[in-house]
């Protein structure tokens, strides 16, 4: 079977510095990593491949330096990597990104075989929207299975797939069909350590680079800034509140006393709240 995994190179949020003077995020010199959620998708894809045979193609859209992430994906054991890179893609929001990626996946299908599963991470750690995966599914008319914690079984003969999907209320066990798009939840597996052969192969591989035309995109107005209705108006670091939090000491005090102290303290800082609450109380009486 053929599996496509979409990954994104993101700044390592653990190492981002905020400029002490201008308060803006200093992107320069911040190391980049593969979006951590995407690693769960990649490992799941590799496991499915190892079990059922086939190939894993990793796809990313980004600047030329995103090649690093793809090479790393090859080190983990992916079979092929494609970098979608073009100045026309700059400034893409989730709509434009899912458009470009879905076009590229269609092209990958034509070139290397139609994908049975497209995997993405649940979301990225820089955008946090969780929109690109579903956007691709919609455009490619694929069944979408989001927030998947586990791929339970795949039957290639009947083309049936069973997954566990985490939701607020509990776990859904979903049976669906291939081809489909799966967005993987965190913690579902741990990325493997690639073998020496994979590492050597990755170090030597030429990463395939496609521009918009090579990815089969005809309507360039749907790409990049032009194809992105989202506008970032302002980026700012929130200013800390001037008032410090009040701490109430609880040592050797009865619960009732702590509660009284708490309420008194809240009302002392929010006189309006006391007024409001006492009036509603009198109404309810």
């Amino acid at each position, binding site marked *: 079977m053929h599996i496509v995994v979409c990954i994104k190179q993101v700044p390592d949020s653990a190492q981002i510095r905020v400029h*002490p003077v201008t308060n803006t995020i200093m992107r320069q010199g911040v190391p980049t990593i593969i979006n951590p959620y995407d690693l769960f998708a990649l490992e799941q894809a590799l496991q499915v491949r190892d079990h059922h045979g086939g190939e894993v193609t990793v796809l990313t859209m980004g600047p030329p330096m995103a090649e690093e992430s793809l090479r790393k994906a090859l080190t983990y054991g992916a079979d092929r990597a494609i970098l979608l890179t073009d100045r026309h893609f700059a400034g893409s929001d989730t709509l434009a990104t899912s458009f470009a990626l879905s076009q590229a996946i269609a092209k990958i299908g034509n070139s290397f075989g139609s994908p049975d599963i497209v995997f993405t991470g649940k979301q990225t750690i820089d955008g946090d929207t969780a929109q690109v995966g579903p956007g691709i599914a919609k455009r490619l008319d694929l069944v979408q299975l989001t927030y998947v914690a586990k791929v339970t079984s795949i039957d290639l003969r009947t083309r049936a797939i069973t997954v566990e999907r985490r939701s607020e209320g509990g776990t859904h066990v979903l049976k669906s069909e291939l081809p489909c798009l799966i967005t993987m939840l965190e913690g579902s597996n741990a990325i493997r*350590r690639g073998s*020496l052969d994979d590492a*050597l192969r990755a170090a030597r591989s030429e990463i395939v680079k496609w521009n918009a035309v090579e990815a089969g995109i005809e309507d360039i107005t749907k790409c990049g800034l032009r194809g992105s209705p989202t506008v970032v108006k302002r980026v700012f670091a929130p200013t800390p509140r001037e008032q410090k939090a009040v701490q109430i000491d609880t040592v050797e005090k009865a619960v009732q006393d702590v509660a009284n102290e708490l309420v008194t303290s809240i009302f002392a800082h929010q006189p309006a709240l006391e007024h409001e609450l006492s009036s509603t109380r009198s109404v309810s009486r």
Partner: protein
Amino acid sequence: MTEERFDAIVVGAGMSGNAAAYTMASRGLKVLQLERGEYPGSKNVQGAILYANMLETIIPDFRDDAPLERHLVEQRFWVTDDTSHTGMHYRSDDFNEPAPNRYTIIRAQFDKWFSRKVRAAGAIVLCETTVTELALDAAGKVIGVHTDRAGSVIHADVVVLAEGVNGLLGTRARFRKVPKPEAVALAVKEMHFLPEEVINERFGLPGDQGCVIEAAGTISRGMAGLGFLYTNKESISLGIGCLVSHFAATLESPYALLDAFKNHPSIRPLLAGSEIKEYAAHLIPEGGFKAIPQLFGDGWVVVGDAAQLNNAVHREGSNLAMTSGRIAGEAIAAIKSRKHPMTSDNLSLYKAMLDKSFVLKDLRKYKDMPALLHTNSRNFFTTYPQLMSQAAQNFVRVDGTPKIEKERATTAALIKARSRWGLVSDAVRLALAWR
């Protein structure tokens, strides 16, 4: 199936490893370089100062794109007691030359750059790959390496050990002994961030000019040691290192030493308002010429810190590392071009070439210095600095005491502290070690 073989495997992607890999790859050898860190430099915590000449020999146009912080125009040597420093400052506009001589660098960035050059020269660089053991044949010749990744031995004609000061592989293979505590220093370092303009103003450094302070004296509490401060573009590297044997004998804790150094009245104002972003510790080879292990054998050579190539007197390490890596690379390429095998006899060419270079000439010159500083540290790092401070204060303080009495007091203090014989003997021994 790792069946292929390489001309050379380089273990480590620091200064010496990169120099060796670059030199061999650019001469057409099939080179594999293995680095345990996530990327070259990710594990590196050096100060650091880059000596341009040695890199220029390897990559002549490095100034075009290497990440350099500041070029150094000023060097301050300080002798400290607890409240003062007596200094010798050397600053020269001559250092504002088109191709400056020394730069401050941040190794995490610099090593990444150097590694890109290594790759561009044609070497294969694998990161996050730890060499766990050298592979030897029945006769004890090194034939390749084992790594922590699944797979068999990777074979090579020669393995260049550029694995750093701890030299685990070389030690495990019994090519060298674990360095003695008196032959290594433990240095601790902090990175203090300050806006560029503040650093420029505080140290009087326009543009990307830089300054280095090196301080010795009571800051090392009687141990043989050195404090340093390097100006980077937007940060200051501040650290102090002392011999491990002295740490063990005095039970001083490195962080307390660094804390005291930071709060020294001469240092504190230079750091005011800074934000600490990194804290690191590392070993530095300080044993000098006498601590250098066997440098080559059947199928292997050792370079850089792993070969203990560090000049403690001039505080040079990375240039010796680079140069030894380059020379090892040149020697291997020469043997290869003659189609000779990588035997111990043939690889002795590396040692012969190193002997002729400044690396071993300098280290041989100072071969007695480490022992002198090790056995006599209290005099050199506490007694004399205190006396020097006292003398300087006597000289500058105006309090109505006749000058002749002041001079007598200074002389008396010296003799009282060390006796005439002690002074003469220290001076002679120092002069001999320096000769």
